[in-house]
């Protein structure tokens, strides 16, 4: 196990919370309720973000923590984006409180418990063997170097991440990405079986200890190699590497595959020759889109694909509707269903279907299984498919 650190529990009084740099901004909240109004689950929470902040400020700390409402936060960054005070709700304040919630919950929902335990033990939430993390490489059709075997510095260390490495539809994305990187002539390598989850969703659900352990392990692994930059297929991992890992010494530029490709689109354009003939609607992911404002990059890529026409959903760009997978939501579907909450991915797929598009294009590995499932549940799977942007690009690539 990693080097132990002493548990830092903020003093569970109002003064204690306000003494932390994360908790102090609580005082800036003007209780306008925009966060609650924009929250996709605001109508089913007993304590919406606004109420939660109000309760904390009035000293109702125990009540706030005792509620399991915070498990319903899918960290979609909507409150973060809309707060007129710019409070760092999603990425800072809420995880601080969620850490206490997880410590107090008499019973962590079983699915979430497995995902967290598996991530700790095997480096992935599925509970698959770490030794199978690079199995997708066979069948990529192009060489995918493993950094340990490469024995030299590399330009781009590509962190494939858990769902792209293990989940079959994620592996389709990984293989497509490998083909695109090869077509671009990028000097890249992957960590293969040395790769572990970046831990961002664990952090966002309140498992800071798990995140810290993974971060330490990942930094030790990175420290063994020389690479100029980090690239990842997972927007959550992008956030972790870009915003949180630097405090433990990560000093390399970080990129996500979609903006990475967008920046090199002109180099690839001559090879994008296959006519796709798709009407595509693009789903802005909460993290890549709303949090990082990367709305134009995926659209420029899609518009460069032959025979692709774009149509927008009602809620797009900063107003995108969350797929429901963030902040632990990926492993809380059974919990939400038991409570009778509507499924966010269903809500989004209804909007997608209403556009009449053939393809729902995405940039986040969580979205593929969530939207494919909703398509089946809602009965739209005969008229629409889900594809990662990279899959579409690979499809348009000449051989």
């Amino acid at each position, binding site marked *: *196990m*990693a080097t*132990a*650190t002493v548990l830092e529990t903020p003093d569970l009084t109002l003064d204690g919370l306000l003494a932390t740099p994360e908790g102090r901004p609580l005082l800036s909240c003007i209780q306008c309720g925009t966060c609650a109004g924009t929250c996709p689950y605001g109508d089913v929470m007993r304590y919406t973000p606004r109420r939660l902040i109000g309760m904390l400020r009035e000293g109702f700390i125990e009540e706030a923590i005792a509620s399991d409402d915070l498990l319903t936060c899918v960290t979609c960054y909507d409150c973060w984006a809309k707060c007129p005070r710019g409070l760092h709700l999603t990425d800072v304040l809420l995880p601080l409180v969620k850490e206490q919630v*997880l410590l107090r919950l008499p019973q962590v929902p079983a699915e979430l418990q497995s995902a967290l*335990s598996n991530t700790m033990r095997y480096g992935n939430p599925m509970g698959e*063997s770490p*030794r199978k993390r690079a199995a997708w490489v066979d069948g990529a059709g192009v060489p995918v170097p493993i950094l340990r075997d490469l024995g030299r510095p590399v330009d781009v260390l590509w962190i494939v991440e858990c769902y792209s490495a293990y989940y079959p539809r994620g592996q389709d994305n990984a293989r497509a990405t490998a083909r695109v990187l090869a077509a671009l002539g990028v000097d890249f390598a992957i960590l293969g079986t040395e790769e572990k989850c970046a831990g961002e969703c664990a952090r966002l659900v309140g498992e800071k*200890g798990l995140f810290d352990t993974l971060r330490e392990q990942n930094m030790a692994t990175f420290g063994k190699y020389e690479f100029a930059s980090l690239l990842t297929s997972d927007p959550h991992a992008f956030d972790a590497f870009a915003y949180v890992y630097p405090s433990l010494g990560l000093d390399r530029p970080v990129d996500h595959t979609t903006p990475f490709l967008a920046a090199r689109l002109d180099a690839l354009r001559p090879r994008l020759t296959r006519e796709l003939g798709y009407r595509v609607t693009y789903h802005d992911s909460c993290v890549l889109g709303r949090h990082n404002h990367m709305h134009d990059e995926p659209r420029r890529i899609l518009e460069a694909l032959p025979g692709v026409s774009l149509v927008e959903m009602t809620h797009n760009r900063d107003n995108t509707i969350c797929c429901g997978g963030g902040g632990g939501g990926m492993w809380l579907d059974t919990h939400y269903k038991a409570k009778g909450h509507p499924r966010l991915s269903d809500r989004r797929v209804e909007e997608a279907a209403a556009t009449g598009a053939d393809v729902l294009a995405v940039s986040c590995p969580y979205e593929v299984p969530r939207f494919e499932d909703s398509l089946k549940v809602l009965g739209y799977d005969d008229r629409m498919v889900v594809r990662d942007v990279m899959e579409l690009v690979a499809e348009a690539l000449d051989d």
Partner: protein
Amino acid sequence: MKILVLMKMVPDIVEELEVAGDGTSLDQEYLRFIVNERDDYALEQALLLKDRLQAAVTVVAPEAPEIDDVLHTALAKGADRVIRVSGIAATAGTRSTASALATTLPGIPGVLPADLVLSGCQAIDDLDGFVAPLLAGALDLPYLGLVSRITVDPGAGTAVVAKEYAGGVMGRFEVALPAFLGVQGCEKPPRYVPIAKVRAAIASGGIEVVAAVSGPATTPLEVTAMAKPEAAGHAEMLEGSVRDVADKLADILAARGLL
């Protein structure tokens, strides 16, 4: 009230298990170990009783790879004392393991006598569940295995347990304490403990280490051969598209009167 929980590690089958070159043991190269799931339930049961009865919970486990993680996790979950016993070979076999624990436990200060001894009733390397009843016999404690629910009446010094039988039959037994109970399941699954608490447990140390005390010699278990099950080829693989396979499956089920 004092509760003793006995836990052990077993091979983690998330990895493909391979037979070593000697043909009688598991290849160790990629082998990982995980806590015996039944023992995890035994710990959970002990912690539930601790909350209800203000009991003290002591965990004892033989030394094995990754055992410290399990012991620190037990501390983080609320165990009062965790003890690792060195010198009991993982390949010792059920009889030797039970014998070694029987001679070692009485010598550890404060462990025995316990009002209740809990351990998993079986493990993937002890499917017949021998260790617990052998040990109970050696400690002269009554043993009930395949227990899925325990209520204790400390005043009366008795426990009422639900014991599972085949065919969905459940028996209710009352047993006078002290007793040894082999845990199959528990009223709730093993609790989650945030990693921050486990890290705090690691920081504060707390694993006591004792050496096993060897007792009367027992016939050691000798493995003469170990092999993976042979695929006999009786499975009929249905080929074709998803639609084709679904149709064939429906035909088969209908033909066998299952639809």
